[in-house]
């Protein structure tokens, strides 16, 4: 504890010096004052290099930066700590050029040693996504202070790594973490990064306070003086706090969808759907193929035909979603293809398919019973569970909902396989190889969530996934993933229903919002509060 305090003390003095140095400039820049935003959860630990998840990024991305951030322009990426990246012909190495003149919040210069340390000591061994993505990373060479060369043991497509950068590449300060138990380092709770905001304070159950970094590497930024993340676990509280002017922003749909219509009409508040394009969530029906009924393709097709996607879109998502055709969302600019098998809403066809499959309806109209486990993480996943139970009843499948909390759901579905159907909200992360192919790939050990735990095995699909993982040519990769979508929709290892993004409700006073496709989890250096 004392260590942290003294370090903060040290930092404050350097910050004060830096503030003096920048005084003329920051005085002329438009000051944003204090901006308060709603946060609906408190992550167990905040280190984005260890836990690559949106709940963590929402707060930590303002302090700790990745090598690159997603952007709306052609390239899809905006350089942050890396200024450029290049893959070798053989796909066995990627060279990153790093930004010069960047300092950590304690004044130490940022160098390639930090990137090498983060990649080898944190992303690869500790991070939930990096452990798979960087499995083939063998070494990171640092020929100079601003160059890092990643060496892989197998060909690794630059396209894949580049698309993953915003999610997996949060850089930690080596001099703080080196030689310590990384997961226990006090800096995981009082973050030290290179970002536009420095760690201020955290009162559990109340708020996180971040303060302006006067020595930020981008001149004149950030614009806001302070960022406060107000912890508001109840969703009604977020809407109330916005209306009362206590918070200026509620992101990640923390205002319930049903309230958006009303709150959008409140003077001074706007509903925003932009800024989540690279954070698309997929509403998926997970299927346990160990169940004899569900192992039958005709049954899976029947279920796909029993679901009215338009109803789900209009009624559960109130239009804030898009119908899914397959495992890649239509808003993905690179990999999506509409050329797949589709399943129109057709209960009669569903019944016919179930008859054909050899499961006729009994006197009461029932064919067989299933257990349905909707993921408890979102209102929408639970509501879709309620709907799916009804939709299945309409074609003679008697589904019983098993309601679990997060931990129990995690265990029942992903470890014990104690389910028949489950509703899951996996995230599509810009490249199917990051977290989408896992949903159908066989051979994944038990205990991994948002992965194929339904016992589905399709050697053709497996080999396609493996080939794509080491295919270097971007066009060839895209073609492989088109084929991937076709195979998945034809054989239905799972059923994609809709793809949805979140909404924000923001005060009209906020400026520069929703200006990149991962905006809610980006660094907010240019966020302002007008008057």
């Amino acid at each position: 504890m004392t260590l942290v305090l003294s370090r903060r003390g040290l930092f404050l003095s350097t910050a004060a010096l830096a503030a003096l140095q920048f005084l003329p400039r920051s005085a002329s820049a438009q000051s944003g004052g204090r901006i308060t935003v709603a946060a609906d959860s408190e992550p167990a630990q905040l280190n984005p290099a260890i836990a690559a998840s949106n709940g963590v990024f929402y707060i930590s991305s303002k302090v700790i930066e990745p090598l690159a951030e997603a952007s709306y322009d052609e390239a899809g990426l905006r350089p942050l700590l890396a200024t450029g990246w290049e893959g070798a012909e053989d796909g066995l190495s990627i060279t990153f050029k790093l930004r010069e003149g960047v300092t950590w919040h304690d004044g130490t210069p940022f160098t390639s040693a930090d990137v090498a340390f983060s990649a080898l000591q944190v992303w690869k061994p500790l991070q939930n996504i990096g452990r798979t993505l960087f499995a083939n990373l063998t070494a990171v060479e640092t020929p100079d202070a601003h160059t890092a060369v990643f060496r892989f043991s197998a060909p690794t497509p630059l396209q894949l790594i580049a698309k993953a950068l915003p999610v997996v590449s949060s850089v930690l300060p080596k001099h703080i973490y080196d030689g310590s138990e990384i997961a226990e380092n006090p800096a995981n709770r009082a973050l030290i990064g290179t970002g536009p905001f420095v760690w201020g304070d955290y009162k559990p159950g109340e708020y996180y306070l971040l303060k302006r970094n006067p020595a930020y590497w981008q001149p004149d930024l950030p614009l806001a003086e302070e960022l406060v993340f107000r912890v508001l676990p109840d969703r009604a509280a977020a809407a109330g706090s916005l209306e009362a002017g206590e918070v200026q922003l509620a992101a990640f749909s923390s205002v319930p969808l049903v309230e958006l219509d009303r709150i959008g009409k409140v003077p001074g508040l706007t509903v925003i759907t932009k800024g989540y394009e690279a954070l698309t969530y997929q509403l998926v029906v997970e299927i346990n193929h160990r169940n004899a009924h569900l192992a039958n393709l005709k049954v899976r097709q029947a279920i796909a035909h029993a679901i009215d996607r338009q109803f789900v879109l209009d009624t559960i998502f109130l239009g804030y979603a898009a119908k899914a055709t397959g495992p890649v969302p239509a808003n993905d600019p690179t990999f999506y293809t509409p050329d797949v098998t589709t399943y129109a809403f057709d209960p009669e066809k569903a019944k016919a398919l179930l008859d054909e499959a050899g499961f006729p309806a009994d006197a009461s109209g029932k064919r067989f019973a299933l257990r349905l486990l909707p993921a408890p993480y979102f209102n929408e996943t639970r509501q879709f569970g309620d709907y799916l139970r009804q939709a299945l009843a309409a074609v003679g499948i008697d589904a019983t909902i098993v309601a679990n909390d997060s931990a129990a759901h995690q265990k029942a579905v992903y470890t014990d396989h104690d389910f028949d159907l489950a509703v899951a909200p996996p995230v599509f992360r810009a490249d199917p190889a990051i977290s989408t192919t896992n949903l159908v790939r066989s051979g994944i050990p038990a205990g991994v969530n948002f992965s194929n735990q339904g016992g589905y095995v399709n050697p053709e699909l497996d080999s396609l996934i493996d080939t794509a993982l080491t295919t270097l040519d971007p066009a060839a990769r895209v073609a492989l993933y088109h084929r991937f979508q076709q195979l998945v929709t034809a054989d239905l290892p799972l059923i994609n229903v809709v793809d949805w993004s979140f909404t924000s409700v923001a005060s009209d006073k906020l400026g520069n919002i929703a200006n990149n496709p991962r905006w809610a989890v980006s660094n907010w250096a240019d966020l302002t509060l007008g008057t």
Partner: protein
Amino acid sequence: MTPALRRILGRLIGSIPVLLIVVIGVFLLLNSAGGDAVDAYLASIGGGDAGLAAKLRAEHGLDQSIWRRLIFTLGRLAQGDLGWSVALNRPIAAVIAERLPNTLWLMGSATALSFLAGSALGILAGRRPGSAVDRLLSGGSLLLYSIPGFWLGLVLSVIFAVQLRWLPVSGIETIASGKTGMDRALDIAWHLVLPVSTLGMIYLALFLRVMRSGMAEAWSQDYILAARARGLSESRIVLNHAARNALLPLITLLGLQAASMLGGSVVVESVFGVPGFGRLAQEAVAGRDTPLLLGVILVSAVLVILTNLLVDLAYGVIDPRVGRGGT
């Protein structure tokens, strides 16, 4: 050592077996749940591979058998060490020290409000059972008691915080205001008005009903008839005789209510974003954080035991018929 003090100490030592039952019960309950702390954590970050899960389980000792963990936990608690919270990644003693004051403020104020106002209104209602005042108060409290607490809280919040903007929507104090001393106390009080009213009103109705029903019953008792026969003034009969006797079940209730209010505060704290004990316990259950839940429950258990001690003492003072044998 005075007899009262000795009795308090005796009771505290006597409550050790009770605490042991509680600890073991809660430990087994939470550990028989589907999913453990690592499952909860992985669900919260959206996943990780099997190796990560195994690594985390080993780090938190969750790969040990349940009995080894129970013995370890009991040993740790016996040394006065509450342990480390898995869900919050902080020492539990520090977490509790932070949240306890919020809870004490919320519950203390709500108890005071509901007990004082409830018993006063209950006396008023029970003075003449069946009168217009009685009907109004009984009816009103009945209605109040029948409204779900979270709904009452949401409605109060919409009216007074969102529409009228008289009071803050949520939180325990203004964020990073730098206020100290009296200013800070007032700020906290300001934030507590709505949660205390919500929680207090439910229990006010309860106290009112019990007080009134005790009073109504008292009127047919022999000692009231005797007091009447002695020609005592009506107000003296009401306060010294009827109310005094009707207070007994009310005081019993006060002891019970300490624990029940803590449970009731889960919902109120959730509606008003108050970082208190109730919410902490909820987070502990959701995160399968056994040490944290044990810590919360042990501390609240000690609070409840102390409250009940006071209740027993008060009981002895008010009802002379209950002597030492009462414990």
